[in-house]
């Protein structure tokens, strides 16, 4: 599981690659730390190369959202595959996030 952080057009973009399962979650949690300081920036979570997301992965996404909202930042999810879309639909996360 790899993550890459980039700043694109004033947006904070985090690229996820591989399987975000329970085992990978603790490291990813550290990797997404740069998103904490997002005042004045929107966040894009790029899932184009994300193959799988577990409940621990969803918790990380939710934590990013919970942190960004009070700062006025939007959190967008980009490029989800069908499996991920299904997980988001089943868990009610489709209603929580915005999609690009």
């Amino acid at each position: 599981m790899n993550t890459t952080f980039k700043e694109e057009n004033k947006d904070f973009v985090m690229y996820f690659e591989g399987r975000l399962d329970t085992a990978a979650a603790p490291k990813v949690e550290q990797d997404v730390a740069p998103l904490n300081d997002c005042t004045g920036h929107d966040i894009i979570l790029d899932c184009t190369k994300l193959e799988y997301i577990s409940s621990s992965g969803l918790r990380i996404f939710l934590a990013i959202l919970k942190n960004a909202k009070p700062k006025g930042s939007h959190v967008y999810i980009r490029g989800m595959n069908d499996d991920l879309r299904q997980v988001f639909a089943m868990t009610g996360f489709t209603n929580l996030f915005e999609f690009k």
Partner: protein
Amino acid sequence: MIDCELTFLGFSIYAWITILTVLSIFFVMARTRIPAEVAFLGALTILLVTGVVTEEEGMAGFGSEPVVVHAAFFVIIAGLMQTGVLYWLTKNVLGAPKNYKNALLRLMLPTCVMAALLNSVNVVALFIDAVKIWSRKLNIAPSKLLLPLSYAATLGGMCTLLGNSSNLVVAGLYLHKTGQSLNVFEPLLPGLVLTIVGVMMVMLLQRYIPQRESAEQSFETTSDYTVELLVPTDNPAVGNSVEEAGLYNVKGGSLVEIVRFDREIIMPVPKDEWIIGGDRLIYAGQINEILELKRTHGLAAADHHVWSINDIDTKRRMRTAYVTFGSDLIGRSMTQCDFEQKNNVALIAVARQGRRVEGQPREIHLQAGDTLLLECPPKNDEQLERNNRGSITFFDSHFVPQLGPKTVTSAVILVLMFIVSSFHMLPLMATTMLAAGIMMLLGCCRMTGVTKYIEWELLLILGSTVVFSVAITKTGIADIIALQVLQICGNNPYIIMAVMCLLASLVSEFVSDVGASAVFFPIMYQQAELLGCNPMPFVMLLMLSVTISFASPIGSSTHMLIYGPGSFRFTDFARLGILMHIVLLAIALLIVNLLYPLY
């Protein structure tokens, strides 16, 4: 004696400090949940700081005979346990008796003998599980066998110095005072008579032994205590924390676990854990009230129940444990401490005296002897037990060792230890240390981590008791009380003995036999000297009278051990205990005076 000009009611200021300290110890032990060792060390600190005792006197107790012998004995017991001697004994002595009377004999006679050799507390601790299983096999309530077990162990323990901790304390104080050490079998004759009478009393008065429902039976089906509810995808709680959503502490219960859509388990659940659609929320408490959440919070019934005690998921384990005396959980509820988080367990239900306690389990203020149904991780059983020694004891705690040549070796070491010390070839302290050393050298007991078998709390208590004795003598309290009692009771040594033994045994009912013996020893010894009598009958009577405190669970360490597993009530011990206390005290007075001449 300390010279001090200021006196009040005949006692110096140092004497008053000592009296107040001793009284406050008694109060603290009887009425609060401060651990005994902390109370004793606190008292020692007060006596040191106020100058009642010198540093040397204060610390002398920690190197005294009772402390060293106990420490060495813990290692010997560990060796006997690890090599399977004790396991073999528990398996082979009980057998299959025909009726309750036979069962009592099969249980009490070997317990008496073993307690005399291995210390009453060790024997009761060892037998509890075996007796519980046995009681189920015989279809007898565990309480009907556990109480006789405790009596038999204490009675048998009276026969040797090693049998009860207080015997060693008295022997240690005697050594300190006179320089003479007592034979390990010194109390054998009077102890034997009391044991025979005591066992006969239990047999004759067996109908006074209370019948209490077994604690585990109150938790027969876990499904009665837990309910699983599903969070629908469109539930407004999704994305909120369990606390924000009002789903953490609910009417009649609390959330003990979340099972995520991918089978990940969150247990125990922190208040700020987020809810995700598809979560199965598992609640413990009053099921009918918790089911209201379907209506109030839009939760759905899960399609099947995950838990039942017979069909436990491999990822979870239900274990029952009881709250031990002196536990830090007493008086607190799970919401007031971090027990669940620290141990990664969840409290499902609480039973008290064989009945389930109504209401939300997490809000229940726990009491000593309460039985807890805990959901535990599937692994690290031993670690969980080790971390919580002194707080809770698990019912399924089992250590089954392999039998082999070392079993014989360690048994031989034990027998030799008794032969050597009974013929006074070596002092008791040296003998027990030698036996512990040989146990380790011959591989009967693992050397690494050997100190973890030692119950340091008990050693601290034993070490600090000596200082009470020193302070009571030094400040003149022993002299004054001894004289006062002589003035009130006249110069008849028999009456004085009877009064002092009655007092000592009453105090030990409410405090501890060890504490009572340390306080009464200097006074009784002084009385013997003032009367010009042989101190031995006084010493022997003190030894016996502090251990016959059968009527309350506080005074007896063995009663404390069986209190939880037998689902006893506080007053259960008094039914037979008061009568035994009176009869055995009278017999002790008679027999000791027949055996030991006063002049």
